[in-house]
């Protein structure tokens, strides 16, 4: 097979294993090789070559995805953006930052902070995940409550389509009402329409000092009223909840002691603006009110930045701590007001079908997003477990549909939820998505089989 000149390729087994998968472990990586373009021009050359050769391309960022969007299990060429890590410009007047697609999201956050600004979109894997991937998946994370998702911060994109066109979308403008905004079509498109090579992100002012509460709830029904009371009394930037199983997983993985005396059925890490320590009084007032109402049983508040980090750890480390148990992940969302009823119904459903399965709940609750993780019992093989989960999936998604929710709040569809898309999108919507895919990628070389099935 000929290869486009000047572009670095590798195809050793270790690299193919590494670059062929994301954080999911359900598919066996089997890419053909991995290409490392260094510029938009080299990506154009790769696309032209792939069209000639009839070779599928799988764009690959930090591969921290949880839906198999970056999995290459079918002889594809992985396009890794690891050699496109330049920060091109930081404009303090707008403020905005323009970077190549391979720059880590954590790096954008650091550069913004050094310049006295903030890139507020954040999640546990920010240091490993890349900007291009975060745009392609419209990543959300822990401060969506205050700042929205990646989509809300994208000011400009350079994209190479499946036809080899280079599109400079929106060109960093803040205001630009001039017809269809293709930028937004690319955000969250999971690599099926184009390869993102450059991104301009908006920045905001440096955040005020913040403090963190760790609360223990008497039960599930206490969580939403507590959220409402805290939201009314404080300027919240995050409200992240997790259950007792999450605490046990993090404690076991990191050999840590939970800072509250007892592990309650549900906890939340609550972050709020506390510029001069004065908001702690307001936090205390809400806390007293919640204790009196029997909703909160215990609580801590951070007195320093390192204590805040330690409290955050109990939420941020959950996903990583349960990875060895090959969790069957569900990233579902419903309207905020429906969260408790939905959670109860879902818990009941899993408990009924698989009483032996251990379920770990955590999520962003303040934005209606829940992560349900079913853990593989130690005695089960990955295959048997996956099969059992697959039998569960239709019922879960049927429930999501009944509650008017989404089967992918922030992780994307990828391979994992592709076959269930019809449970939340109409046939008309899916047909239009296919038609759009056809326009941007007529040869079907871009991330085939992700999000939409390949029609043969």
């Amino acid at each position, binding site marked *: 097979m000929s290869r486009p000149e000047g572009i670095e390729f590798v195809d050793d087994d270790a690299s193919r294993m590494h670059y062929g998968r994301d954080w999911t472990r359900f598919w066996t990586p089997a890419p053909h090789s991995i290409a490392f373009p260094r510029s938009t021009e080299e990506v154009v050359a790769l696309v032209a070559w792939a069209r000639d050769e009839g070779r599928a391309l799988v764009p690959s960022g930090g591969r921290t995805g949880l839906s198999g969007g970056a999995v290459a299990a079918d002889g594809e060429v992985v396009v890794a953006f690891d050699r496109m890590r330049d920060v091109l410009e930081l404009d303090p007047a707008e403020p905005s930052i323009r970077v190549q697609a391979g720059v880590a999201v954590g790096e954008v956050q650091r550069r913004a*902070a050094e310049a006295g600004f903030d890139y507020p979109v954040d999640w546990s894997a920010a240091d490993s995940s890349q900007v291009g991937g975060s745009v392609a998946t419209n990543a959300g994370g822990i401060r969506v409550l205050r700042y929205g998702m990646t989509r809300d911060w994208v000011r400009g994109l350079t994209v190479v389509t499946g036809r080899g066109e280079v599109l400079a979308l929106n060109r960093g403008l803040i205001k630009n009402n001039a017809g269809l905004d293709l930028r937004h079509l690319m955000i969250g498109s999971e690599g099926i329409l184009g390869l993102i090579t450059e991104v301009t992100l908006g920045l905001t002012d440096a955040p*005020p*000092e913040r403090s963190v*509460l*760790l609360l223990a709830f008497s039960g599930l029904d206490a969580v939403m009223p507590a959220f409402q009371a805290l939201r009314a009394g404080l300027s919240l930037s995050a409200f992240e909840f997790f259950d007792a199983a999450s605490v046990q997983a993090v404690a076991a993985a990191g050999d840590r002691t939970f*800072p509250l005396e007892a592990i309650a059925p549900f906890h939340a890490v609550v972050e709020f603006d506390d*510029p*001069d*320590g004065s908001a*702690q009084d307001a*936090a*205390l007032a809400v*806390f*007293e009110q919640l*204790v009196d109402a029997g909703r909160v049983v*215990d*609580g*801590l*508040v*951070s*007195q*320093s*930045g*390192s*204590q*805040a*980090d*330690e*409290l955050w750890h109990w939420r941020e480390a959950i996903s990583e701590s349960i990875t060895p148990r090959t969790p069957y992940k569900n990233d579902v969302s419903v309207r905020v007001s429906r969260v408790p009823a939905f959670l109860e119904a879902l818990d009941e459903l899993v408990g009924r079908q698989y009483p032996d399965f251990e379920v770990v709940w955590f999520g962003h609750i303040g934005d209606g997003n829940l992560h349900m993780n079913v853990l593989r019992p130690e005695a089960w093989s990955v295959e048997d477990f996956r099969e059992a989960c697959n039998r569960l999936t239709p019922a879960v998604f049927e429930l999501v549909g009944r509650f008017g929710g989404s089967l992918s709040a922030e992780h994307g569809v990828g391979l994992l939820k592709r076959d269930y898309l019809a449970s939340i999108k109409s046939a008309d919507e899916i047909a239009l998505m296919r038609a759009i895919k056809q326009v941007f990628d007529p040869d079907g070389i871009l991330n085939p089989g992700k999000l939409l099935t390949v029609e043969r």
Partner: protein
Amino acid sequence: MKILVPIKRVVDYNVRVRVKSDGSGVETEGVKMSINPFDEIALEEALRIKEAGKAEEVIVCSIGSKDCQQQLRTGLAMGADRALHVLTDDEVQPLAAARALLKLVEKEDPKIVFLGKQAIDDDCNQTGQMLAALWQRPQATFASKVDLDGEIATVTREVDAGLETLEVDLPAVLTSDLRLNEPRFVKLPDIMKAKRKPLEEIALAELGVDAGPALETTAFEPPPKRAGGRMLESVQELVDELKNKGLL
């Protein structure tokens, strides 16, 4: 037995410290302030001694502006019984702090004064030692382990050569090192209780000590910016480069 724990209000350990644009000091406006981490460790140890039934009272104290009461309240919420606040808006250097603390020691008659080994803002590492000298009592600094037995404290210290164990007669000054313990979190109900604990204000001037600065700071400047990294094409180039710099 009483334990007196002096705590200092400093810029939070996690904050990126910025020098003021006019070079007159570091920026503290709108910056998160906390108890000096070493002092927090000293306080934690004092509380553990009390909880083990070896002390009756833990008193936190601080010297500085009205804002220090925030940190004193945190100390009370952690479990200290009462607080003393020596009020001044002027800069307080280690010798002045030691002189003021001596006055509090004379007033309270503690068996142990437990401080952090140094404050993370000026890194002086002097106040505890100076207080011991002024008080004419033993000192055991950089403690990584403390055992009390009646009138004797056995203290393990972290020194360059390893660990050193001292026995000191009480009353004495102890200072804490990083590995002595891990301070507790503050529970919300305890913050409520802390509001009702006594906090006594004393003007620095009333103590009748010479609190004038012994040192004059002439300028503040940030460390020089690090030069950016350079990508080299080959190992040979790296070797040549290191040789040119005389590093190989």
